[in-house]
């Protein structure tokens, strides 16, 4: 599977204070839902990912549960964070 541009962009540099919508798989709709839940920044979601032991499956489940993401979206997001962690953590 080729990675999306958004994924490349995100995983190519430190995330800094990037908004949550910069995460791959998180678009306008999911982004707003996450913001409602208090996850304003990408690092908030990263935190959740880390608490879940960097387990992609768990983050996918969490995203589905929290904001009603579908498998594709949640999977993209988890993969994105995983790659970021591999590169920068």
């Amino acid at each position: 599977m080729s990675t999306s541009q958004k994924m490349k962009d995100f995983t190519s540099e430190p995330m800094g204070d990037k908004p949550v919508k910069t995460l791959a798989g998180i678009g306008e709709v999911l982004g707003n839902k996450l913001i409602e839940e208090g996850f304003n920044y990408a690092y908030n979601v990263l935190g959740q990912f880390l608490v879940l032991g960097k387990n992609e499956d768990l983050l996918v489940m969490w995203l589905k549960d929290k904001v009603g993401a579908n498998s594709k979206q949640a999977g993209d997001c988890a993969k994105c964070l995983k790659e970021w962690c591999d590169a920068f953590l």
Partner: protein
Amino acid sequence: MIVLSDWISDQFTHHKRLLNFNNKSDDEFLLFLISTVNNLVQSIKPVFVNGNSPTNNSILPVCTGIENNGSPKKRLNAERFPSEQVNKMIDTATLTTFEEPDKENISANRPHQKKRNSTDNTYIVSKQPTGSVTPTKLQKPFSSPQIHDKILDTNLMLTPKKILDKNLVLTPNGKFFTDIRDEHDTDLPFSTEETTPFSPRVELELCNKEDSNNPDVQENETSERDKGKCCEEDEDTVSHTRRVTDCRDRRCKFCPSYDPVYASAFQELLDDTIDELEELELYTSATESTENLLGDKPPYLHEAVGPTTSFSPASRCDKLTHEEYKGSTYMTEDVENQTVCSWHDWSMMTATNETIPTSSPTIIVPDWIRDLSDKDLRALLISKGALVGAISHSTRIVYEQYLVKLESTPLSTHDNSLEGYPRELVSCLQGQPQVDWSEAEREMVQEFQTPVVGRRYRQGTMKCFFNYLLIDPRVADDLSIKAKTLNPREVFKLFIKSVFYVGKGKQSRPYAHLFEASLQNKDSEKLRRIRSIWGGDRGVVSLHVYNNSIAEEAFTREAVMIACIGLKKLANEKGGEFYGVSKRWSAQKRRGVGLSLLYKAHLTLLNEGHREIKQCDVVK
């Protein structure tokens, strides 16, 4: 003297018509243009003072594709251009034009900032020391991308390199940049053939020309913005696909950094210019002509423009300011300005493409899991081989669902540790419902219980034989102890994995292997395994099962057990031999019975516990 290329003079005529200057002379229209340009230049100048004072610091960063964090992303060539020089050049240009209007043409792409997505008050001021341009007829709007490209290429050919070099693009944020063209101009392929390898830099050219050729739609679009729009729609045309790909590549090269000073200054400037333009009533005339032109535009431009124009100016504006005030540091002036590649655009684009999330079937968490304490939940998950992080209120739900998932899915689907084992065994270890093989087993050994007198049996009819399994204790340690904590399936799996030899014999036959291993003069997989167990200061476990059978029964039982585990996973040299009714059985049935036998054998081990035979026990 300023002489403009064909297409600019076309634009001149074209604009004149569009802006209802048809009944006026060329000079009048030119004056009008110049005044507009001057207005805009005036309105830009304050930005220089706010951002970078040209008097104190005459060097302005030319392009904005620079990131501060030193990421590996490609960057646009950052050029520095003396702002004073640029000002001077522009002034000279306008001035000269004013003095000799009959010989010179100037074209300014007037901005209509009502459309906020297209924000650039970009002027292209072309200078050419020699040569003149005869006004040509307005070219018909292009009917296909191919023709379009060709015409543009022709334009490139008509336009001497020097013109391109001196093209200055002035952006509203007060930064100057020359096009990416810069010193690479010589590379421009001038071929009009479709097969020409596509050059990104020609693409830039194309887009610039497109802007100018369709001024009323795109004149306030910068080339990158324009390309960004192209990217939003897939095209059938090969050349365009190539272009789109290229645009995408290009996109990632621009990752602008956020500069709040410029952004706010630009915002102010935009508001000012919009007000000015509203006064000039340029906007209304432009929108009218946009509608007129749309019908004749090349198909891909239609599509390209579509999504962007669907943004109403107001909503776009709201969006931008909203983003800005949210304090998102990646919001850049370039979103409005020059580049399309920031995350912001991408997220907006994906947002439009994004389907409303369809929530997947939710996992119903049974009450007993809900009632578990965090600690118990954690313990349960760990017992299932899951990697468990912190279980807190924010993660608890996920872990509950994870447990449900683990409960419902077979234990071993995730690990490939069962690879190489026969199907029946794997399905059993994965917890799938099993056929009851005990009847078949009884049938198999029935005829051996009362040996027929007069018939020859291999190795006689003495009921002194048994089967034995040699077990590697390093795999499972003492299963009889482990069985108290592990689930039965896991125990059986460990048992299967630890068996490395299945045999049949009488009396001290199992010890023959061990003795053989101690002699050091023979070598086989089985002996190596025994020696390695001994080497780790452990002993081999010899499990004797199914005692008191005649030889053929023991042979048969051995054979089905070997068939069940598979010769590959055992140190046995050869498979077993079948006697009696099992000779005619299918391999599947044999393996099934073998499974049944192995299961009982493992229960025996659990009952009896294991006793290891170490090397010192064999060699006295």
